[in-house]
């Protein structure tokens, strides 16, 4: 491997860390290990050793990089605005070019093929029921055997449905769609063209694959309608297509993307009012990293939820839960230790239900026995009760 500039990180970005260490407590892997090479500052130092000083890529370097959840909690913590996520993506891409990434990550290619993914999911669901796979250890949810088809109801907004979430948690999409429709809006669905946003591939360093998925997704979500996203990991990368693809068209596309809560928070008066039983339920709001640290739109979840329930913030400064897309499957031990801290914060909140706007977090936390719902599943349930109540009153 070419020693100089081998990681392809922008030299200005790489030089921009003053090593103050203010990121350390915001890094989940530093928090649970206390080890510098599992911290953003240590990882940047490691990247500099390779790129600036020509050190060889060895096992220690690979573990330092692969142990990163890519939660980007270090970014809002950094007073100098060091773009850690982009440096880590460049590093992962360099490692992928050198074929130095975990072989399992090549499996992300399946995500672009909806029929294949659905077929494999169906098989997995059967195998799960025969108890032939250790689901929890693999970080898998209980995959449904059958799912109802979603049907478009108009063309005011797009609802991005994605890959794994559509294959495993389509009922969440259905609930989100009902809530959006209750605001008097017709929802369009992209179909199999927008099969996957490419986030997992991008984080694994498979940049070309991510770009190919981005191109397909942009094609399938044409026009000028807002693109609503109910998975914050997908939303974050859709908002960064401008950077990933690098065209004016991609920039325009990204500007249309909104987290569904962000969209609803400015239209609360269009939603039905809360019923009498309002705010009985206490819900702890888990901030998914890519909603809080990347999209920086996490406040909108509490704003929407607060209309129908008592929303409690967790007291852990938005530290990651350890799910990290495929991270929980790739690094099960670290992911579990990181989750321990989150479970403690959930315990301190006193809430029985946790709301998570990201499917990965939902699966990871549910595997530890927590009751986790998408925030709009909770709203959907409340709206259902309110409408039933109204119907009863009419009678």
């Amino acid at each position, binding site marked *: 491997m070419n020693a100089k500039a081998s990681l392809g990180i922008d030299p200005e970005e790489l*030089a*921009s*860390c*003053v*090593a*103050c*260490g*203010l990121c*350390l*407590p915001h890094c989940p892997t530093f928090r649970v*290990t*206390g*080890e*510098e*090479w599992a911290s953003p*500052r*240590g990882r940047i*130092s*490691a990247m500099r*050793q390779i790129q600036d000083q020509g*050190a060889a890529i*060895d*096992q*220690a*370097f690979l573990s*330092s990089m692969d142990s990163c959840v890519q939660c980007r909690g270090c970014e809002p913590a*950094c*007073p*100098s*605005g*060091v773009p850690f996520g982009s440096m880590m993506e460049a590093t992962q891409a360099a490692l992928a070019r050198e074929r130095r990434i975990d072989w399992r990550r090549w499996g992300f290619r399946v995500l672009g093929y909806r029929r294949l993914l659905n077929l494999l999911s169906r098989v997995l669901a059967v195998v799960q029921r025969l108890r032939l796979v250790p689901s929890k250890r693999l970080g898998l949810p209980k995959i449904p055997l059958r799912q109802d088809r979603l049907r478009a109801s108009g063309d005011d907004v797009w609802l991005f449905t994605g890959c794994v979430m559509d294959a495993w948690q389509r009922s969440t999409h259905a609930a989100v769609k009902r809530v959006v429709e209750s605001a008097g809006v017709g929802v369009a669905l992209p179909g199999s063209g927008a099969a996957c946003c490419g986030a997992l591939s991008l984080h694994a360093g498979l940049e070309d694959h991510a770009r190919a998925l981005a191109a397909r997704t942009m094609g399938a979500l044409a026009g000028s309608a807002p693109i609503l996203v109910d998975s914050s990991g997908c939303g974050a990368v859709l908002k960064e297509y401008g950077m990933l693809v690098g065209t004016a068209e991609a920039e325009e596309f990204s500007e249309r993307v909104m987290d569904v809560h962000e969209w609803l928070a400015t239209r609360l008066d269009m939603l039905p009012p809360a019923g009498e039983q309002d705010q009985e339920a206490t819900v702890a709001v888990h901030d998914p990293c890519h909603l809080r640290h990347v999209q920086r739109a996490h406040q909108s979840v509490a704003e929407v939820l607060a209309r129908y329930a008592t929303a409690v913030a967790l007291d852990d400064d938005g530290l990651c839960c350890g799910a990290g897309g495929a991270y929980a499957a790739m690094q099960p031990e670290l992911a579990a230790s990181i989750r321990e801290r989150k479970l403690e914060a959930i315990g301190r909140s006193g809430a029985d239900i946790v709301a998570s706007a990201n499917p990965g977090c939902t699966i990871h936390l549910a595997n530890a026995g927590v009751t986790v719902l998408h925030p709009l599943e909770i709203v959907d349930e409340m709206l259902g009760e309110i409408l039933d109540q109204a119907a009863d009153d009419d009678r």
Partner: protein
Amino acid sequence: MKLLKASRRDSLLRDLRRVLPPDRVRVAPLERSIMGRDASIFEGGQAGPVCFPISTEEVQGCVDAARRHGRAVVPRGAGTGLAGGAVPLEEPVVVVTTKMNRLLSVDADQAVAWVQPGMINLDLSRALAPYGLHFAPDPSSQQVCSLGGNVGTNAGGPHCLALGVTSAHVLAVEVVLMSGEAVVLGDPDGCAPGLDLRGAYVGSEGMLGITTAIAVRLTPNPPAVQTLLLAFDSVDEAAQTVSAVIADGIVPAAIEMMDKNIIWAVENFVGAGFPLDAAAVVIVEVDGLPGGVAAEADRVAELALERGGRVRRAADDHERALIWKGRKSAFGAIAQIKPNYYLHDTVVPRTRLAEVMSRVYEIVEEHDLQVMNVFHAGDGNLHPLLLYDRREPGTLERVHAAGSAIIEASLAVGGVLSGEHGIGIEKRDFMPLMFSEADLDAQARLRRAFDPDEMANPGKVLPTGASCADVNTLGKIPEGVWG
């Protein structure tokens, strides 16, 4: 020869791994080189085996193994030191305390807690919130720095103006000496007989032993707090207001100053509403009983207005927190302007503040550099940050020259070399400007009373030749350490 050295290293490794499990003794070149730096200017330290003990006994084991192999020991906490105190020289055994991060016990009635050295400063205050108590020293790095590191440098912080620095809040320390013995210095009840060895230990920058537990004094949370943000059109007016507040007999909880460039950088990060058109801002915080707080805040505002200042009061806790977040992020925000900085930490008499500040600006101009000032104005503790890009040839020489001139200017008015960051490697060679040979010899003898062979964090604080015996083998700072 090389082989011999390697086999010696391996037997050290074997001995360390008898004490700690293999995954808590790291030796890969990358893992060691990452430990070669802290938050200071130095980048080229060389670590030997890096150990992560979780108990006092394990620290003792690491020290014993190092001693048997004639290897020095460097303790390290979160690595946020600003003077290179944790930078390892000549491949010592590095003992990292981050995994020793538990709160051992709290006695709320006596306002004392025992903590492990790797506990993060802010985590302690957060854990104490249910008791209405906190740990008073609050360095800017408090969200990450370890309490062991605070003890090592006798750390200060904005709120040390009224309450005193770390030493005033440490009642006792458990220390592993280089003999391998664990001792307790001081007494948690605050009545240790004999010489105050605790006092000698706090601020000894890892040269007397390794801290393995700390009994900290806890401070009740104040019933009322007001934070004022004062903006001025000149640094001079700001400095005069600081002197006027102190002369008026008010002892605020904190008085902090920031000048124009740093205001821009932190505002860009936090968006706290710092005035971008001001030449300097002063943050004044007063606390205590509500009546007294209101009266003091009014008086501070009056003094500022008389000197041409503009006054804003933080409306609520959220605004207050944002102002402090801005102040405490200042060093880290520097890379928005330049990728490197060299930070000084001199303390000058408060009455000479305005004068020294203008001298600092002159010096920086003479050396064609940029400076930012963000500092504890209330106790005259300057933090001029000299900005540079190490990739530009010749800059570092100018930075060093300007740094020396700033130190000389501070000492000339009766100031001291370092307020709170410590001496480490960075200020080591300036020590003779401050201390006579006899002073330095006394310090070296105190150190050897604890550590006769000078195996604990060698090469720090005391310059070569500081001691008559001159056993210090680390005369010169090794090549490459200055980056």
